[in-house]
């Protein structure tokens, strides 16, 4: 006999602290899940990049080679390569296993805020404070970018890549969506300096947080606003925002030491997760599970939907 169809579950929110990782690399500038969510990458202000295991919280590898603090990192889909960017104006392509620098790309005129692989890790895109996004080829030996997108009038703060689109948020208050397939550039005016942009998981919407302490959900194709989320504090820092694993909630860091969860549809504040006293600088949501990473000062916290007894032990490496 067939079992009855289970009722759709209430989406679980990662509100239980599973683990605290003391990264010991100065302030953690960014924390990112890898492509499958089993590993954590942390960018330190001590010029190092560290790879951690989520389940055990142990340090797996340290990548050193940047000349100044590391600002962002992304891992390739196959976990074989990392790209990171730094205040030293460089973008580095790393070999994960050996920890060696595969390529060090110079060209940006200022510190590089964000970096992203495309889907197949054939191109790295880096956005810099110099207002340009540079597309670097990982396949060829060229040290010049394939293309420079210099349409932004101010520094690039955040960028995301989808299958054929580049979503770029700039301090000039505009979110630019480059559509490679259509050969079009859509510029959405937000007005306030953008701190973070991201695609929704279904690829139909874009989320952008800006320095007016607002997160906006825009329809990707028309630019119409679908939702507006506020209540958090984002006035000076470059804070991250993201969507939960099933696009049910909108998350944003806040300068008051919380992570805010809003219901995507209703726009109401669902949860105000207290992380600590300082600014929650960065966050990253697990690609498939309700699991969240937050970075505050020098440590990273792993949050899960259910408390994990064994995970209570904080690991220090």
């Amino acid at each position, binding site marked *: 006999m067939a079992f009855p169809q289970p009722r759709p579950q209430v989406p679980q929110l990662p509100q239980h602290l599973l683990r605290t990782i003391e990264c010991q690399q100065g302030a953690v500038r960014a924390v990112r899940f890898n492509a499958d969510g089993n590993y954590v990458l942390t960018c330190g202000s001590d010029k190092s990049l560290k790879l951690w295991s989520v389940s055990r919280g142990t340090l797996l590898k340290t990548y050193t080679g940047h000349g100044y603090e590391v600002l962002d990192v992304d891992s390739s889909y196959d976990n074989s390569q990392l790209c990171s960017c730094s205040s030293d104006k460089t973008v580095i392509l790393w070999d994960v296993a050996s920890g060696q620098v595969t390529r060090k790309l110079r060209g940006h005129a200022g510190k590089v805020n964000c970096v992203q692989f*495309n*889907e*197949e890790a*054939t*191109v790295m895109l880096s956005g810099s404070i110099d*207002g340009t996004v540079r*597309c670097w*080829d990982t*396949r060829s030996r060229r040290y010049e970018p*394939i*293309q*420079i*997108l*210099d*349409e932004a*009038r*101010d520094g690039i703060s955040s960028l995301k890549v989808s*299958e*054929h689109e580049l979503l770029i948020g700039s301090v*000039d208050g505009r979110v630019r969506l*480059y*559509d*490679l*397939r*259509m*050969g*079009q*550039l*859509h*510029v*959405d*005016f*937000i*007005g306030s300096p953008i701190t973070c942009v991201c695609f929704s998981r279904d690829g139909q919407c874009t989320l952008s947080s800006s320095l007016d302490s607002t997160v*906006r959900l*825009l*329809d990707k*194709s*028309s*630019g*119409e*606003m679908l939702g*507006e989320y506020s209540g958090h504090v984002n006035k000076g820092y470059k804070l991250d925002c993201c969507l939960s694993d099933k696009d049910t909630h909108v998350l944003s860091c806040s300068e008051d030491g919380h992570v805010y969860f809003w219901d995507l549809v209703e726009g109401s504040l669902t949860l105000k997760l207290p992380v600590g006293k300082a600014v929650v600088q960065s966050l990253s949501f697990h690609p498939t599970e309700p699991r969240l990473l937050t970075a505050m000062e020098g440590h990273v916290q792993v949050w899960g939907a259910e408390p994990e007894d064994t995970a209570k032990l904080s690991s220090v490496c």
Partner: protein
Amino acid sequence: NMASDEDSDEDFVTYGTPLEPLEEDEPIRKPVPVHEQTVKDEKGRYKRFHGAFTGGFSAGYFNTVGSQEGWTPSTFVSSRQQKAERQNARPEDFMDEEDFSEHGIAPREIVTTEDFASERKDQLKDKARAVSSLAALIPGDPGLLEELIAPARSSIGVELLRKMGWKDGQGVGPRLKRRQRKQNTDAVKVHGCALLPSGSEESEVGLNPLQALGGGSESAHINLFTLQSDRTSSLFGDRNSGQKRRGGIAGQAFGVGAMENEDADIYHKDSMSNYDTVLGGEEPGDGLYGWTAPQQYIRKKNDSKRDVVYLGRILDGFTLASQVTEIKTVYPPPDLPRDYRPVHYFRPVVDSSTVSPIVAQALLTSRGHLSQEAPQQGRHSLGSSQRRDMLGETPLQGPSSVFELLGSKDRERLNEIRSVAKEQNKSTLSSRFQSTTPQPDSLTSPAKTQASSETQMALNAWSGPTADASKTFKPFQKNPQKQARYDLYINKLKKGDKEALESSLDSSMTEWERGRERDEFVRAAVLYKPSNSSLSSRFTRSKHEDDTDSVEVTRDQENDVDDKQAAVKMKMFGKLTRDTFEWHPEKLLCKRFNVPDPYPGSSTVGMPKIKRDKYSVFNFLTITDSSHVSREGPSASKPPGSSTTLPHLTPEVNKKSRWDKTGKVSEPKDPLSAFLSETRSEVSVAKQIESDGKQTEPKTDEEEKEEDEEEVRPPMDLFKAIFASSSDEKSSSSSEEDSEEEMAPSTSEPIQISAEPLNPPVSAQITPAPDISKVPGII
């Protein structure tokens, strides 16, 4: 020895190869060169020399070292399962049998070590002797016994002494008298090399140099005068058993020869008083120490003035000073009061003008917190009138300027001269550096130009519509008169008065004061010029080079930001806030993204650029493009087939003027563009009809709803014909870089797609959507 004497010659064992007996007639053989010299081992095999560090001769099993089969160092291999074993290699592991043989470096047999060997190290002889002694069967042979117990070899030290002529039993060093020893018997402290117990004194007559020289031989350090065998002498009892080790030097072992009478006293105890503990000798008899007398002089100087009487020898050419040099009195710092706390609290300074008189009075009485303005200013910051006011003088009644004292004729003449000079000044300076102030002639010309340029800057900054005066900064607030003059100056500046500065200055002031004030005002005016609202907003990247006449601008310009801001405020995101532009990705980028190139034929990358004259009137027209679909916000959402515009047509259709693809939908509110669009449509219709004949390809299809929105404009050439001067030709010639457009014969063809009803929609579905913006200009 006796045993060897008895032996015959056959008992000798020869060692080594004997030289061949010399034959007198034999010619002298050449020495064998090094490379031909060979070494053979005991079995007659050749030994190969491998080098000092690679095994010497014949290393390895059958000389295999260095060959491929030979010994090679094992590389370090370790894994988790198989840990590397720690190997403790002994020296023997690296030795072969030769080394273990009798004459090798590590003989395996029991051999008398060198220490126990006899003086003349002839082991063969020893052996022979042993054999003979056994044969002699005299077990109590004292010589043999001696050799067994204490080998007769003396140490190197003794050998050296002998070489230097020392005889056994003799002392070493200068002779010592008994007397001196007795002087020091009472000394308690002993410094020396060794101390023998006093009881043993008699036994030490006939000094055994080994012991005498040996000193503390039991100590661990290497003693040149000790042999290992000496330690064996403790077999006979520890002679030094009573000795306690003390630090320092002990004994004068080298003092007296053993054969001398005073020999018993050589171990006298030395005392520390025999040694100087400080550098420098005692006071010599004359009391002079070189050419100065440091000790006494210093000592005497301390107590009194008697040091005038200098006791030392006075150098030639110097005399004693008749007067004592005065010693500067040093005053100690004042004693701090007991309740002093080294912390200063700043009292709040209150401006008297902002405080009610009662409060001010209260403040004044209570330790004066009120700030006092004038006294804080320097003397030079006060004007003459201010100083006069402070001193309570009455203003001078006389003429304020020298000119007034002159006769009228003289004055006129002076003025004439001045105006002539001014004219010359003006002509020499460039026209824009019009000197607003009659410069004193003493000023050099660069200074002049600088000053005048500053005044010009101030004028530029303030003239024109600027912020109102009430908001401007008041730099001379403390001096109301000066501020009033400054305000006057600023006001005149705003009216664009070029003589603003000079006329606003106080004519009663001196020339110097006026000069200073002039500078101050100009500087203040430049410094505190009203800030534009655009300045206070963010700076943006300059996209224009200043020098070139033409400038590359992106073809599509963004819509008005103010509109968008308003839309954002109203939360009307969507059409109002979105701009869509044509953007050409690099081919390689498309390839890497696995996306077909949206513009296969185009070589443009990024946003399409065009060159424009920098200061052309066309830059100020709202250049619009009817074909552009930017207003069609959700175009991306439409299925590609239902593209709103005409597909990519055949190449010749693609020929068009560069102007045709520029611009966007014009703003309906703009009257100028409305006018333009009207004219445009008229012209284009006309052209349309004209060119209909050549036309082979179908036209665009536009959706009906667009029609009302879209205005069509004529080609830019028309505008040029109307507005542009001949200088604009340049831009058209420079535009040939643009790959898409220059093929068009520029005169007649370029026509915009005009009123759509004329052009029946044909095959809209042929081409993909990305070509939206490539609406052909020529039809």
